[in-house]
């Protein structure tokens, strides 16, 4: 420790005189501000889209209330039958949404749920029709700046932390002093961590606060994630410097590692998941589902027609019996289609599980996952929304069955009492278990790098 302090002090003095670093930090600041703004714009657009969906339901309810108020005695009250009551589960972006758009665009953000609706209730709320170039490259949000650009900033500030002394022969004089090489490397790495990470974290948090992402837990989790990911990159630079004798070699190695970890690694993970468990086609599934559904309904219609015309009870019920028949037929249809849905869901779940495991080996993916979870734009939250919406659909079916049994038309007051969808956040905020696992992954990666540095330290004394 007594050796570390002078080394850290010396390195900080040198870094203070580095003219390029302030400019690089300013550039990072500009990118972070733009990323946060871009994320905030997306979150606002998503919120607005959710509001449009909510307004749609409100408009329909208002129409129903007006129709009920204007209805004359003896009039056809079909508009008041409960199966056409609008329900709109909506997945609103979280407070920290500007941090990362993440997986949110790959999943529906709302559902047009009715008691007799089916799995296609999500179809209108998928973002699949977005610009394919944007989808391929990913959004320029703050998470992108952290994952892709922060390593470049850190590598720029530390790529030659020991190779520079080696190529300029200062290393010989240093190594002839009674200082262990591990203390030397540790001091240099710590100095860079102290000089670069706090400003990077402050810039990130500042950008988030500027756009209103001010959840204290989310900010702390973001700071921890950026700190751990940044430390990982400083240790990468340190390990490179154990072996690189020239700064150009160190820079090239740093660039290659960045390319491997940030660009190729995630792409290879996706390719691996594609090989192990190909992503089921959403379009193919939707088409097959619709075709099967139409075939079932055609058969049901033919069976109904074979039974002769509908018998109208006397006195006629408030809710036509054909609604009850439809509901029974829908239950049959759901049961017949359930295996197809389960197969599709299983394929998605398998792929999701594979990607979930692969992230344990990929620091950049683990970091993206952690940021997504802090932002609430992770796949688990979106899938939880889908499950909750499907559960809500079943609740509506029970609610409808009860009203059908009691032959109750909707009244204006009933619209205040209809079940409402309340999204239950699936995990305990930003510090959910999987986010902590992501941090552990980064911590283990740092430990492995530290071990590699210690094991290879003798190479650093080779002049």
């Amino acid at each position: 420790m007594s050796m570390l302090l002078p080394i850290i002090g010396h390195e900080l003095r040198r870094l203070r005189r580095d003219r390029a670093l302030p400019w690089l930090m300013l550039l990072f600041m500009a990118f972070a501000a733009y990323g946060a703004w871009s994320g905030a714009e997306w979150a606002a657009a998503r919120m607005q889209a959710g509001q449009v969906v909510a307004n749609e339901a409100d408009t329909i309810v208002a129409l129903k209330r007006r129709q009920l108020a204007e209805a004359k005695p003896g009039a056809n009250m079909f508009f008041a039958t409960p199966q056409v009551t609008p329900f709109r589960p909506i997945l609103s972006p979280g407070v920290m949404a500007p941090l990362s758009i993440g997986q949110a665009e790959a999943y529906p953000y709302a559902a047009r749920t009715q008691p007799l609706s089916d799995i296609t209730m999500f179809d209108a709320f998928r973002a699949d029709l977005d610009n394919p170039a944007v989808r391929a490259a990913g959004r320029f949000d703050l998470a992108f700046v952290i994952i892709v650009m922060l390593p470049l900033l850190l590598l720029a500030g530390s790529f030659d932390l020991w190779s520079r002394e080696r190529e300029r022969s200062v290393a010989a004089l240093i190594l002839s002093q009674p200082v262990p090489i591990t203390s030397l490397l540790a001091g240099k790495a710590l100095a860079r961590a102290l000089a670069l990470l706090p400003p990077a974290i402050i810039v990130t948090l500042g950008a988030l606060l500027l756009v209103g992402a001010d959840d204290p837990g989310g900010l702390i989790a973001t700071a921890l994630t950026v700190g751990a990911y940044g430390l990982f990159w400083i240790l990468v630079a340190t390990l490179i410097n154990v072996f690189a004798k020239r700064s150009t070699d160190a820079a090239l190695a740093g660039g290659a590692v960045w390319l491997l970890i940030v660009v190729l690694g995630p792409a290879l993970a996706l390719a691996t998941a594609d090989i192990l468990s190909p992503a089921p086609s959403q379009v193919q599934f939707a088409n097959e589902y619709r075709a099967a559904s139409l075939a079932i309904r055609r058969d049901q219609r033919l069976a109904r027609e074979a039974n002769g015309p509908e018998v109208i009870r006397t006195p006629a019920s408030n809710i036509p019996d054909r609604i009850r028949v439809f509901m029974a037929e829908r239950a049959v249809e759901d049961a017949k289609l359930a295996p197809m849905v389960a197969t599709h869901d299983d394929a998605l779940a398998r792929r999701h599980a594979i990607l979930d495991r692969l992230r344990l080996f990929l620091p950049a993916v683990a970091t993206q996952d952690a940021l997504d979870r802090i932002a609430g734009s992770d796949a688990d939250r979106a899938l939880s929304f889908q499950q909750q919406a499907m559960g809500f659909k079943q609740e509506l079916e029970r609610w409808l069955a009860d009203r059908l049994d009691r032959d109750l038309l909707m009244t204006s007051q009933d619209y205040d009492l209809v079940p409402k969808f309340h999204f239950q956040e699936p995990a305990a905020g930003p510090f959910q278990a999987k986010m902590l696992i992501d941090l552990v992954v980064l911590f283990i990666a740092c430990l492995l790098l530290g071990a590699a540095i210690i094991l290879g330290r003798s190479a650093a004394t080779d002049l």
Partner: protein
Amino acid sequence: MLTATGLSKQYGAHTALNDLHLNVQPGEIYCLLGANGAGKSTTIKLFLGLLRPTAGAAIVDGIDVARDPRAARGRMLYIPEMVALYDELTGMENLAYFASLSQVPDRSPARLRQCLADAGLQPAAFDQRVGDFSKGMRQKVGIALALAKDARALLLDEPTSGLDPKASAEFHELLNRQRDRGAAILMATHDLFRAREVGTSIGLMRAGRLRRTLTAASVTTQDLEALYLEEMAGD
């Protein structure tokens, strides 16, 4: 103070140093003469612990360098051909940093300035960036570090190579002062004249072997040159 016993260094089939026996006493300047590749720099690196010996031992003040390199380095100072320092820092800042690495107990600015002055550096240069220093000025910072850490042994690898005659004479005067305060000095050099001038003992090396050891006072420069050429013409 500096002792080599059967010191050898092998790189695969190539023998860089073969069974070196050497002893440099306090107050002695031992000059190693030899052509490039003779094993002079290898000897110095083995004493510094920058290389591990294949056989034998390098001992500094009773400490086997291979066993406890840190303790040995605490007693030595290395001055290479070109004292490479941090160009962006001043002479004082460089000296302060290297003194801290050497765990010099008194690193007060006053003491370090005194060391720089004693090493012959002009006070105006103390706070100048080392990037503007000449080679001779850099050597003086190296000597100042030796003074600061009170090094008992100095290992010099062709320190005057490329210095102008005046700077070279100044440097050797500094070396004499170090010798007079009791430091053991091992210097690798090509400069026969200076070796004869400042050296106490002279070793002639060729192909990794110490061929001959002379007392500087016992030979003239002409004799030394003749012996040197005779040794180098071998094989």
